[in-house]
């Protein structure tokens, strides 16, 4: 098995682990961690799968660089919102949906 394929498989596992985490965890900080794992997983699949014959491919590598910056932007926004919620309510979990 090549490094590319191996890390693509790790990427799949990280993605589903992160996805399940976002769905199941209540604490917002953990959810943000889980979302980041999801992103890292998708990035590993993108590069790993493209390089499954172990030859470097600059195109997906550049895409992942873009993706990492987008992920940090999303993380920062999520943290700012979570901190705001904590400042207002003292809680780090989302309140029940207020949808009536």
């Amino acid at each position, binding site marked *: 098995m090549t490094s590319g394929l191996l890390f693509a498989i790790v990427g*799949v596992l990280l993605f*589903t682990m992160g996805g399940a985490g976002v769905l199941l965890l209540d604490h917002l900080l953990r959810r943000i961690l889980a979302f980041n794992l999801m992103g890292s997983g998708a990035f590993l699949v993108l590069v790993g*799968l493209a390089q499954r014959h172990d030859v470097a491919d*600059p195109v997906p590598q550049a895409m992942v660089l873009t993706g990492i*910056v987008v992920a940090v932007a999303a993380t920062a926004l999520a943290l700012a919102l979570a*901190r705001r919620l904590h400042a207002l309510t003292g809680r780090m979990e989302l309140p029940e949906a207020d949808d009536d």
Partner: protein
Amino acid sequence: MKRLVVIAAALAFSLALIATLLELPAATIDLRPAVAENLAASGVAHPVTAVLLNYRGYDTLLEIAVLLLALFGILALGLERQVCTLRAAERPLQLLARLASPLMVVVAVYLLWAGAWRPGGAFQAGAVLAAAAVLLHLTELLPGWLQPSARLRWGLAGGFLLFLGVATAMLARGALLEYPPAHAGALILLIEAGLTFSLGLILAGLFLFMTCDEGGD
């Protein structure tokens, strides 16, 4: 119950996907020859930088917009900030930070310059600049930021505006971001220099605008 269902679904999905990855035939198209052939016209010698700032430079332009947008989003929350004061910190730590931060600026400039032919470039350089600012903040040498002044706003948006301006100017020649091969290297370096500066400020801002949203003491 929900937990079990989600975990079972995640496991089943992982296994199915991994099985399909193992049987996937070779990709139909290989872009590597095209990347290599056009490298001479791209203005840089490092393929990843060529993809990032030339072949797919449009992605990068929009990605800077995403970063700016995150910053706008944080500022728009209207955090009730108190004045950010500096606390007393350990003198040796401060000395270390004072020594390290100019060094980090040098590293950033090197990464920016080296990006043309080897790993490095504006993002890594900007991140190092931001790390220097965070370090100065953690050692109480740099206070967190409140609402940005006009000058800081120009600094934050300047790199993006420069990129946007160059991209637009190229439109007059034919296509958005179509650099003339003779000047591509210089134009990319100009854009990267502007981006490094603004990315350093934006990434530092993501940290420094948030850190003052509550009185620490």
